[in-house]
C-alpha cells in the first residue's frame, strides 16, 4: 500500500478542497512568519540592556493600530470563510440520477450493495465520472465512512439513513476506513475503494455472482413478509396503495403533509404508528426485528421500482440532511 492511495485527489471536489487547504497553509504560514519575526525581532532589539528607544506610544496611535488590526483580521477571516463556504456549497446537491449504492456498516465491517444486486464486503467499486450517492446506515453504533482520496467522510447512524455523494475522476485503488470510534476493532474496519472506468464497472457488476437485483428481491420479500396481504388492491384490509408512493406527497392523519422518501418508508415499516396516513386506521404491525437492514434496503428498492412521484431520487432540498433531521 502506498501513500498515494490516501493522498491522491480523486475527484474535482477533492482538488478544490486541496486548493483551499494550500491557500490556508500559505496564509497561516505568512501570519506565523510575521508573528515569529516580530517576536524574535523584539526579543533581540528590546532585550534588557540593549540601547533601543523606549517609551510609550501616543494613545491615539495605539487606538488606531488596535482598530486597524482588528478590522484586518476580521476581513481576512471573512474572506477565508467565504472561500470555504463556496467550496462547500458547490458540492451541496447530489446530482439527479446518481447511482445509488447502499452501505451497511456494522462492527467491524462494511457491506456494500449495488443496485444491480452485486454485493461486496469491505471493498467498494464505483464507476468513474458517474455521480454516485451512498445511502448509509448502521446496524449497531455510529460509524463513519471515510474516503480519503475524495476528501469525504460522513457519520453513519443506526436506524437512520445518511448520505455521501461524489463524482470520482481518477481510476485506481484507494482506501476506505471507519472514522468514528466504534469499539475494539475500529482501527481494523478498513478496506479498498476502487474507482473503475464506467465500462469496466458495468462489466464488473454484471459479472458479480449475485441473484436478482435489489428491487426483485424486495418484491419477493413483499410477499413473504406478508405486506401484500394488506397492501394490494382488493385486499380485505384497508391499507394505502403503494404504487407510485416513492417521492409522492402523503397526507397524514394529524394534518401534516410529508414526502415519502427513504426514511419515511423505513419508518412506516418499523414504526408504523409514527406517521399514520389520513383516512386509515393505525392497524399495521411493526416489522422491527422481523425485517433486517438488508431486507429494508430491498423492500425500499422494490417500492421505488413501483413508479415514483415528483422526485427521482428522494428529497431535492437540503439533501445532505437525513430526512427528519433538524438543523
Amino acid at each position, binding site marked *: 500500500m502506498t501513500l498515494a492511495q490516501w493522498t491522491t485527489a480523486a475527484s474535482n471536489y477533492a482538488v478544490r478542497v486541496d486548493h483551499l487547504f494550500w491557500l490556508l497553509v500559505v496564509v*497561516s504560514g505568512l501570519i506565523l512568519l510575521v508573528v515569529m519575526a516580530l517576536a524574535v525581532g523584539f526579543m533581540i532589539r528590546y532585550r534588557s540592556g540593549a540601547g533601543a528607544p523606549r517609551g510609550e506610544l501616543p494613545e491615539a496611535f495605539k487606538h488606531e493600530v488596535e482598530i486597524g488590526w482588528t478590522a484586518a483580521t476580521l476581513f481576512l477571516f471573512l474572506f477565508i*470563510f467565504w472561500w470555504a463556504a463556496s467550496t462547500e456549497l458547490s458540492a451541496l446537491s447530489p446530482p439527479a440520477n446518481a447511482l445509488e449504492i447502499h452501505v451497511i456498516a456494522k*462492527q467491524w465491517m462494511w457491506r456494500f450493495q449495488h443496485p444491480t444486486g452485486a454485493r461486496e464486503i469491505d471493498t467498494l467499486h464505483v464507476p468513474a465520472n458517474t455521480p454516485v450517492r451512498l445511502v448509509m446506515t448502521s446496524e449497531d453504533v455510529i460509524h463513519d465512512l471515510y474516503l480519503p482520496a475524495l476528501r469525504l*467522510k*460522513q457519520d453513519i447512524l443506526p436506524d437512520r439513513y445518511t448520505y455521501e455523494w461524489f463524482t470520482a475522476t481518477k481510476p485506481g485503488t484507494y482506501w476506505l476506513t471507519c472514522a468514528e470510534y466504534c469499539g475494539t476493532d475500529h482501527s481494523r474496519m478498513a478496506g479498498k475503494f476502487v474507482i473503475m472506468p464506467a465500462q469496466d464497472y458495468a462489466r464488473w457488476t454484471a459479472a458479480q455472482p449475485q441473484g436478482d437485483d435489489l428491487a426483485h428481491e424486495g418484491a419477493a420479500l413483499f410477499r413473504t413478509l406478508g405486506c401484500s396481504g394488506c397492501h394490494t388492491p382488493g385486499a380485505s384490509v384497508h391499507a394505502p396503495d403503494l404504487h407510485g408512493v416513492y417521492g409522492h406527497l402523503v397526507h397524514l392523519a394529524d394534518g401534516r403533509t410529508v414526502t415519502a422518501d427513504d426514511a419515511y418508508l423505513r419508518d412506516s415499516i418499523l414504526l408504523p404508528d409514527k406517521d399514520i396516513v389520513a383516512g386509515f386506521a393505525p392497524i399495521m404491525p411493526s416489522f422491527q426485528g422481523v425485517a433486517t437492514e438488508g431486507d429494508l434496503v430491498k423492500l425500499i428498492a422494490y417500492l421505488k421500482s413501483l413508479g415514483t412521484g415528483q422526485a427521482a431520487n428522494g428529497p431535492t432540498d437540503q439533501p445532505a440532511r437525513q430526512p427528519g433531521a433538524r*438543523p
Partner: protein
Amino acid sequence: MTEITLPFAPVEDTGAASYLDAGHTIASWLTTTDHKRIAILYALSITIFFFIGGAAIALVRLELIEPNGWFLTSDAYNRLFTLHGIIMVWFFLVPSIPATMGNFLLPLMIGARDVAFPRLNLLSWYLYVIGAAFTIYVLVAGGVDTGWTFYPPFSTNYSNGYVVAAATGVFVVGFSSIATGVNFIVTTHMLRAPGMTWFRLPLFAWSMYVVSLVMVLATPVLAMSLLLIVAERLFGLPVFDAAHGGDPILFQHIFWFYSHPAVYIMILPAMGVVSEVFACFSRRQVFGYAFMVYALLAIAVIGFMVWGHHMFVAGQSPLANLVFSFLSFIVAVPSAIKVFNWLATMYRGRISFEAPMLYALGFLGLFTIGGLTGLFLASVPIDVATTDSYFVVAHFHTIMVGGSVSAFMAGIHFWWPKVTGRLYSEFWAQFAAITMFLGFNVTFLPQFVMGWEGMPRRYHVYPDVFQVWHVISSGGAAILAVAYTLPLVYLGLSLVRGARAGDNPWHATGLEWQTSSPPPKENFRRVPRVEAGPYRYDAAGRPRPQGTPL
C-alpha cells in the same frame, strides 16, 4: 489617609510568619479554609493526575511505534486513550490554573483576605477528590473505552467498560468546577479592596472571573448529558435509543454545548497568566488593556455559539454547518487580537528571559499555530476531510498542551517564589522550558502532516505508510516526558535548598507582590489602598506598585 483595619485582623501578632506555619498537621491541611492551602491541595492532586494521564499516553505512544500493535490489545489501547482524555481534560486541565493559581492569587490580587465562601472552597476540593476516586476505581477495575466523548449508542449499549463509574466521576468533578466558579464570581464582585475598580483589575483576575462565568453556565450541561448516559445504561431508559425514537445526535449537541466552552475554560486562564508574565518580563504595561478585557468576554460569549463545528459530519443540516462555521471564524478574532497585543507589549519593553517568560513566549508561538489550524477546521470542506484524523488531535493538543500547559508552567514558575518563599534553579527551569518547546514540536508537527494525509485518530493499528510520523511523534513524546519530570526535581529541591525569595523577586506590579513571600494567613498585614491600574512601570522598568501599603 486613614488606615483600613479589618474586623478580623489578629488582635496581636501571632508570630506565625506565613500561612504555611499556621498548623503543621495533616488534619490542619485537610480541614483548612485558607484559599492558599486549598490551592496547594489542588496543586498536589492535579499533578498526580497529570502524571497518571501522562503515563497512559506514554504507553499509547510507545505502542504506536509499531503499525500493527506491539504489547497492547486493542481493548487495552482503547481504554488507555480514553483514560488519557478523561483525566487530562477534567482532572488536570480544567482545574489546573483556576483551582491552583486562581485560588491562591485571586484574593491576593484584589486585596481580599480570602475567597467569598472559604468552606465552599474546601468542599470544591473534596468534590474533586470524590470524582477522582471514581476515576481511580475505573482505572483499577479495568478501564473505560468510549473515548472521553462518551458517544452513544456505543457508550450506552455496546461498551464493556466501566462507563457508569467514569461518567459519575466526571459528573462529580464538574460540581467542583461550578463551586469554584460561584466562589470566584462573588469574590470578584464583592471583595475587592478599596480603590480596586473593575478596570484596575489585573488581567489574570479578569480571566478568573470570565472563566468562572463559563464554568458555571457550561458545566451543568455536561452534567446532564452524562446523567442521561447513565440513565440509559443503568436503567435501560431509551434516552438516545433510535429504535424508540431517541436520537444519538441529541447527545452530541448537549455534550458539545458544554465541551466547546470547556476548551475556553482551558485557555482563558492561560491567557490571563501570559498577560501577567509578558507585562512583568517586558517591564511594561500590557498593550491595549481594555481590548484584552473585551476579548476575554467576547471569547467566552461567542464560545457558547460554535459547538456545532464538532459535528460537521455528524448529520447536521448544511445551514447549521454554515452558521457554526461562520461563528467559528468570528470567535477566532478576539484570540488574534490578544496575540497582537502580547507582541505589542514587548515592543519598546525591557525584555528578560527568565523561565516564566520562556514559557510565555513558547505559548505565544504555539497558541498562534494552534489557533491558525483552527481556521482550517472552521472551514467545512477541510474539516470534512480532516475531522477524526490526527490533524484535529494535533490542533487541540497544540492549544491545550502547547498553549495551556505552557502557560500553567509559566504561572507555576512566576508565582513559585510567592507561594513557597523560595527561588528555584533558573538554569534548570530555562532548560526545561526549552526542552518542552522542542519536545512539543517534535511530537505534534508530524501529527498535522499525517492527519492531512489521512491517518485517522483513535487507531490502535494503522497503515504502515504513516509509521515514520508516528515514530518521530513518539520520540518527541519521550522528550516531553523528560521536560515534564524536570520541574518535579528542581522545584522540589528548591523547597529545601532554594534561596529565600523576598516579597517581590521579579519586581512586578500587582498587590500579591506587596505582601511577604509566603504571604501571612490573612494575606495582608494591612490592605493596600489601590490608586491606579496594574502594570505600571517607569521609564527604567521599575515597578510602580498598584497600591500603597499604609
